[in-house]
C-alpha cells in the first residue's frame, strides 16, 4: 500500500488538489475526505491525519474552502468543508499543471522503455 505520509512523498501540492477534487461533489468532513480519497483510489492512497488537517488549515487560510459545523447522518457534530469559487478555480489550475507533469513524466518513461 502506498501511504501519503508527508507531502514530500507525493508531488508537491498533490494532496491539496486531491482534497479540492473530492469536495467538488459535495461538502465533506475531514474523515469523509480521507475515506473518499481511499475509496476513489481503490485503497491505494491513504491520507494520514497528520497531513490532512494541516492541509485543510492551509486551504482555509487561502480561502479555497469554507468550513462550517453541521450534524452528520448519525447525528454527530462534524466540521464540513465546502469548495469555494476561488477553490474551484485553483483546482482547475492545479489539475492542468498536474496533467502537464504526468504527460512529461510519461514521455520520459516511454522513451526509456523504447531505448
Amino acid at each position, binding site marked *: 500500500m502506498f501511504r501519503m505520509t508527508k507531502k514530500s512523498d507525493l508531488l508537491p501540492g498533490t494532496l491539496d488538489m486531491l482534497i479540492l477534487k473530492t469536495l467538488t461533489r459535495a461538502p465533506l*468532513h*475531514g*474523515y469523509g475526505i*480521507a*475515506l473518499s480519497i481511499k475509496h476513489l483510489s481503490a485503497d491505494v492512497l491513504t491520507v494520514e*491525519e*497528520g497531513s490532512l*488537517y*494541516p492541509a*485543510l*488549515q*492551509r486551504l*482555509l*487560510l*487561502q*480561502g479555497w474552502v469554507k468550513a462550517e459545523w453541521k450534524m452528520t447522518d448519525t447525528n*454527530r*457534530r*462534524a*466540521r464540513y468543508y465546502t469548495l469555494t469559487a*476561488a477553490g474551484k478555480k485553483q483546482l482547475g489550475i492545479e489539475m492542468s499543471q498536474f496533467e502537464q507533469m504526468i504527460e512529461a513524466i510519461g514521455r520520459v518513461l516511454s522513451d526509456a522503455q523504447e531505448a
Partner: protein
Amino acid sequence: MSGLVKLFRKFGVLFGRKRFRDELDEEMAFHRAETEKAYVADGMSPAAARSAAARRFGNATRLREQSHEVVGFRAETVLQDLRFSLRQMRQSPGFALTAISILALGMGVSVAIFGFVDAALLQPLPYADPSRLADVAEASATSPRSDLSRADYEDWKRLNHSLSALDVYGGSGYLLATPSGAVPVPALRVTDGFFSTLGVKPLLGRVFLPGEDQPGKSKIVILTYGSWVKRFGGRSDLVGHSISLSGSAYTVVGILPREFAFAPRGNGEFYVPLLDKNECEQRRSCHNFYGIGRLRDGVTIEAARAEMQAIAAQLAKQYPGSNQGQGASVVPLSETIVGNVRAVLVILLSGAGLLLLIACVNVASLLLVRSESRRREIAVRGALGATPTRLLCQFVTEGLLLAAAGCLAGLGVAAWLITLLLRLMPKDLADYVPFWRLVGLNAHTALFAAGVAALCALLLAATPAVRLSFQDIRVGLGEGGRGAAGRMWQRLGANLVVVELAIAVVLLVGAGLLGQSFYRMLHVEDGFDTTHLATVQIIAPDSIYQKDDQKIALDREITRRLSALPGVESVGITSDLPIQCNCDTDWIRIVGKPFHGEHNEVNERDVTPGYLAALKARLIRGRWFNENDDTTRPQVTVINEALAEKYFPGEDPIGKTIGAGDLSPKSLRQVVGVIANVREGGLDQEVWPSEYFSMYHGPDSFIAVAVRTSQDEKAVLPTIVSTLHQIDHNLGVYGETTMTDQIGSSQSSLLHRFASWLVGGFSAMALLLGVVGLYGVVAYSVSQRTREIGVRMALGAQRATVYKMVMRQAGWLTVFGVSIGLVCSVGASLLMRKILFGVQAWDAPTLAGVAVVLGAASLAASFLPARRAARVNPIEALRAE
C-alpha cells in the same frame, strides 16, 4: 485571496486560540471515532479498534501543533523559547548571574557617564532660547578671552547691530550685616538687562528695570533662591525690605527662582546693578566685566564676531593708548560654560563605552563556552527534528533575554552611580558646573540606554548564531561533544579574548596617562613652599577704611598680631594669592626700549614686605621690599624671572625703570629685585611675567593673608580667624584654607582628579574582565584537551612540555592582544592630548608599564589551567573516555 484577509484570519486564530484548538480537537476526535467505528465494522473488538485508531492518529498534540503552525504566528514559538531560556537560566544560575552582572556593570557605567554628558553637553542651558546667547569679551594676544572695560562695553552696546541685547556682569563681594557680625558674601554686579537677556523670571518681586544700573540710581539687590533661604530663612516679606551690604542699605526687589544658576559666577548670591563707576571703571584700560549678548534673528555668531571685531578695531584707532591690540571674542555662551569640561566628559564617555564593549565581549564568550557544553543538547534536539532556524531562534532568544536582564540591572547600577558621583563631586566644582542638577535618568538617558541595550542584544544574539551556523549536528552527536569541533570555538573565543585584552590595554594606557598628567600637575614648579601655609581672604569695608593710611595701618596690625600667634613663623599680605589666575594684570613699558603702543601684559600683585619671604620665594638678585617702601619714596618693584627674561634679555634688570604706556611720572618704578617665578596662574597654565609692588604704596580693601606656620597649618586657621575678628569685628573674613587644600581643589586639578580616578576605575575593571576572559579561554581549552594531554603524557611527554604547550597558547593571545592594544592606545591618547598635562601621548614608560602589567596578569591567569593540565593523570584521562 488577498493577503489582508489572510492576516485577519491569522489574527482571528491568535486571539481565538482556545476556540481554534477546541474545534480542531473536536474534529479530530470525530475522525478517531469514525475510524474506530470502521475497524469495529471490519470485525475488531472495540478495545483493539480504539487502540488501533489512536495508533494511526499518533501524537495528537503534535498534530495540533502542525495544524497550528500553518495558521499561527511566530510569536507563540517565541514564547516557548522564552520559557525555555528562563528554565536554562534557573538551571545554571551561576552563569546567568555572572553574565547579567557583567552586563549591568558595563551598561550602568556608560549610562551614568552619559547622564553627565547629556546634562553638560546635550541639554540646552536653562535660559530662554539659549542657542541665541553669546559670550562677549575682549581678546588680546596673551588671552583669547579677556574682560571688557566699562567704557568699551558702552561703545560696543551702542555701535553694534548684531545683538538685540548686550549686558555685562562682573564679580564683587559685600559684607552682609548680620546679628553675629559682618559676613562676606560673593556677589555680581550686572547691567539692567542681565536677567531679561537670559530670559529669567523672578520667583518673587521683579528683575531690574531699564536704566536702574545708571550711576546715581538707588541701591537695589536681587537674591538667589539659595541665599534667600540660607540667610533670610526664605521670608516671603523680604522683598521691599532693605538689607545692609558693606555699610549701605540695599532694597531687595526680587528673588530668583530655585533652578536659576549662572555658571560663570556660580557662587554669586547677590545681584546688584552696576550703578556708580568705581576707580577702575573710570578708565578705559581697566577691564573688569564679561558680556552676554543675544543674537538678533538671522544673525550668525560669526557675523556678530566680525562686527564686534570691526568695532574693536575702530576703538583701537580712536583710543590707541588703551585699546591698541584689543580685539573681540564672541562665542556661544554654552562654549564658555561647558567648554572646559567637554574634553574630559568625552574621554570619560569613550572610556565607559570601551568598558561596555569589553563587558559585552566577555558575556559573548561566556555564551560561546556554554553553547559548546550544550553541543549534545543541540545535537539531540536537531536529531529529533528541530530545524536549524528553530535552534537558532532558541539561542537568539537566550541572548536577548540575557541582554534584557543585564540592561535592566544596568539601569539600577546607573541610577546608583549617578547619585554616588554627584555626592562625590566637590562643592566648589558643583558651584561652577550647575548643570549637574540636570543629571539623572531622563528621556535622553533612557533613549541612550535603549540604544546600548539594543547593541548588546545584537551582539549577544549574533554570537551563538555565528557559532551555530558552523556546526554540524551529526558531528555533535557522533563525537559525544568532544574533539575537533572545539577548535572552531577556540578560534572564535580566542579572537574575542584578543579584543578584550586590546581594549584593556587602551583603558590602562588612558588611565596611566591621566594619572601621570594629574601627578605632574600637582608637582609643577610652584616657586614657593606650598606646605605649612595657611591662607585667608579679608574684605576691609570701605565705609570704615576709607583712606590709604587706614588700610596700611590695618595691614601692619594684621601682620603684627598674626605673627605673634604661637606656631606662626611669618605673615604676608597680598592682593591675590598664588595659584589662582593670570589676572589682575598691568600693561608695562620699559623705559629706554622701543615701544609702539603694544600691550605688554604682566601680572600685578601688591604685597607687604614680608609676603614673598613668607612664601619662601627665592630672591635671585637685588632686595626684598622693606617697611620704608611707602608713598614717601619713589615707587619700586620686584619682578619675576619670566619678566626679566622677556623684557631684559641678557641684561641686569636691577636699576632699570618700568612705566605705563604713557610713561607718566606717577607710573615710573625702579626694579629693585628679581625673584624666581612664583606660580600666580593655575596649575595647568604657563607662568606669566609678574611684577610685585609694595602694598604700602597702594593698599587694597580686598586682601589675602598668607601665614607660614611651623606645625600643622590647618590647626591654626580658627585662631587666625578669631584674631582677625578681634582686630576689627567689621572685617569680612572668608575662604580660610591651606595652600595644599587650595591646590587640590582648584578646578583644573579637580577635573583631572575626577577623570583619572574614573578612568582608573574603568581600566581596573577592564583588566579584571580581560584577564578573566583569558583564563576562561585557556581553562576551557585545557578541559577540552584533557584526553589529548593524557595521550601525550602516556606516550612520554614531560610535565614541562605540557606547561609549555598551554602557556604558549596563552602567550600568543596575550602578545596579540597587547600589541593591538598598544597600537590602538597610541591613537586613542592622541585624541586625549588636549587634556594631558606635561606628558606625551606616546609616553613610552606608560606603554611599557601597561604591557608588563597586562603580561604578568595574563601569565598568572594562564598558569592555573596550565598547572591543571600538567597534573592530568594519563590513566584517568583515558579511562574517562
